[in-house]
């Protein structure tokens, strides 16, 4: 196998490497990834094992009104969460989806029917018209009761760190103290909107750039080999050889100049004669 054939094969291989590298580069997923979830509870919770994931960067929660975020001791947070419906983010199913668990709390309405003894049968008929004026769940009643006031979540003394925002709260997760819960809630008791967590995922792409550059080098080498096979360079070679011969004085047979280094080189190198023994006797 000639050198040229080897170079052509290397060039073909380099071309394949270049194509593969470019395709891989185009298909590589981004390092930064944002995973989103829609929430239908007023509280969302991330446990310490989720917050400890080193890939996580920031968390953002949206709502129609105010949003508060807090951290707490696990035991304290769990005691507080007993009263509220909450979505627990337990990890990642894929990079596009969280694994979650929802705990729903049903709180009895304070306006529920009283358990007092029922009236006598004769009172039933009389009470019928009055029932029309009783509070109902009509749409009018719902619209007439704006929910702008803050919901009472009890004391905030258990929270270790607090954040708040209007419509959105965003937190850098790297600053969280290990071992604590992160609890985010809407201030009006309504459901939260969305949860977004940005993460810096590990992508195995360190090999792509070297592959591309090596492919480019081999492809160029192969291209040169192919070009040399296609183009007849013998006239050029002949001209180069004749020019080289012309420049060489040895080839013309001219004598070296007297006393020149060429003359000495042609005559063979000579060392100076030194009589070492004689010098030793004199001392």
């Amino acid at each position, binding site marked *: 196998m000639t050198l040229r054939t080897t170079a052509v094969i290397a060039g073909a291989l380099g071309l*394949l490497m270049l*194509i*593969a590298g470019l395709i891989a580069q185009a298909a590589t997923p981004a390092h930064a990834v944002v995973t989103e979830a829609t929430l239908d509870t007023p509280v969302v919770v991330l446990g310490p*094992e989720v917050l*400890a994931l080193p890939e996580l960067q920031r968390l953002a929660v949206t709502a129609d009104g105010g949003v508060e975020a807090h951290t707490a001791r696990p035991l304290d947070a769990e005691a507080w969460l007993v009263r509220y419906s909450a979505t627990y983010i337990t*990890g990642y199913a894929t990079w596009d989806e969280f694994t979650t668990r929802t705990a729903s709390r049903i709180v009895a309405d304070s306006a529920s029917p009283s358990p007092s003894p029922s009236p006598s049968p004769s009172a039933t008929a009389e009470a019928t018209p009055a029932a029309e004026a009783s509070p109902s769940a009509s749409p009018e009643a719902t619209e007439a009761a704006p929910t702008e006031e803050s919901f009472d979540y009890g*004391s905030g*003394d258990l929270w*270790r760190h607090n954040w708040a925002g209007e419509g959105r709260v965003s937190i850098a997760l790297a600053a969280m103290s290990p071992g604590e819960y992160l609890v985010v809630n809407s201030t009006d008791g309504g459901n939260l909107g969305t949860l977004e967590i940005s993460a810096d995922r*590990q992508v195995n792409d360190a090999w792509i750039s070297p592959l591309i550059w090596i492919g480019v080098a081999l492809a160029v080498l192969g291209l040169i080999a192919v070009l040399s096979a296609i183009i007849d360079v013998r006239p050029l070679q002949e001209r180069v050889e004749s020019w080289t011969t012309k420049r060489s004085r040895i080839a013309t047979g001219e004598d070296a100049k007297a006393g020149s280094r060429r003359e000495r080189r042609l005559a063979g190198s000579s060392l100076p004669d030194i009589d070492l023994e004689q010098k030793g006797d004199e001392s």
Partner: protein
Amino acid sequence: MRRTVVVATTTALFLAGCAAAPPQATVTPSLEAQASLIESQATAVIDSTFAVLDAADAAKNQDLFVSRVAGNAALVRVAEYAVAKAVPEEPVSDLPSQMQGVYVSRSESWPRMLAAVSEPPADDLTPVVYLWVQESVDDPYRLVSWAHMIPGAVLPAMPGEVNGAEPLPLGEVGVDPSPRKALEDYVEYLRQGTDSDFAANFADDSYAQQLFSARGVLAQAASGTGGAYVDTIQPDFASTFVLSTSDGGALIFAPIDIASSFSVKDATLKLSARDAPLLSGAATEQVTYNYRDFVVLLVPPPGQEQLPAVIAAEHHIISITP
């Protein structure tokens, strides 16, 4: 050639798609600060309490206590407001808001406590020991008691704010006597007076001495008119908290109820200007002074030649009833 290109492209796509799988949340890191309150939380509670108290003091209005002052502290302050309104020379007691020490527990249940020791309010006054209690996770920490330190008393070293002090049960057997026994004996000592056998079980303290001194004077005055003076003293174990000290001792925060009944015969009692605002009804031949005292009692660790001692105590009057 075509097959080679297909294989190379497929391999590239496969490798390019080798982003790491999503991380799995499997390891739960341990909590750095085990205490039920970290420093910023305790500071927020203290600052909020004194902001509320300052506003209430300025107006002498207990309605402004909101949710930060409750229990015996509220009763005592209300009594002070009543006296201060009636007697301008009797201002409410000075409660400094600057703390030199904060004691938190690592309690995992409720009710929980927070204690703090103030800077001395004046050169001639000792620091004040405060006690806050949180009844449940939804409740705020409320100031429920305070007492000045006994002159010369030294608070023991307590675990830091990171880990918090271990809450001890009243029946804790790691100290001798147990907190319950120490409190029972001390209350019995207060009931019986200086001649009590329990006197030898406790270091001298000015609180007990003042109580006994007043009792002697008032008993003598009452008996001179054919009447009597009786102190009824009861501990409040349900509201008592115990923390472990750094050296293995126990620090007991105990409210004590004292009812001092003073009666005369064939005479009518006349209260002083300071006491009159606290009287509900009319004084006749008998009145009862109701106190909500607060005592901080230290039980030393086993092996130390040291008696249980009162560190802080205060005799707080809240009302006078016929």
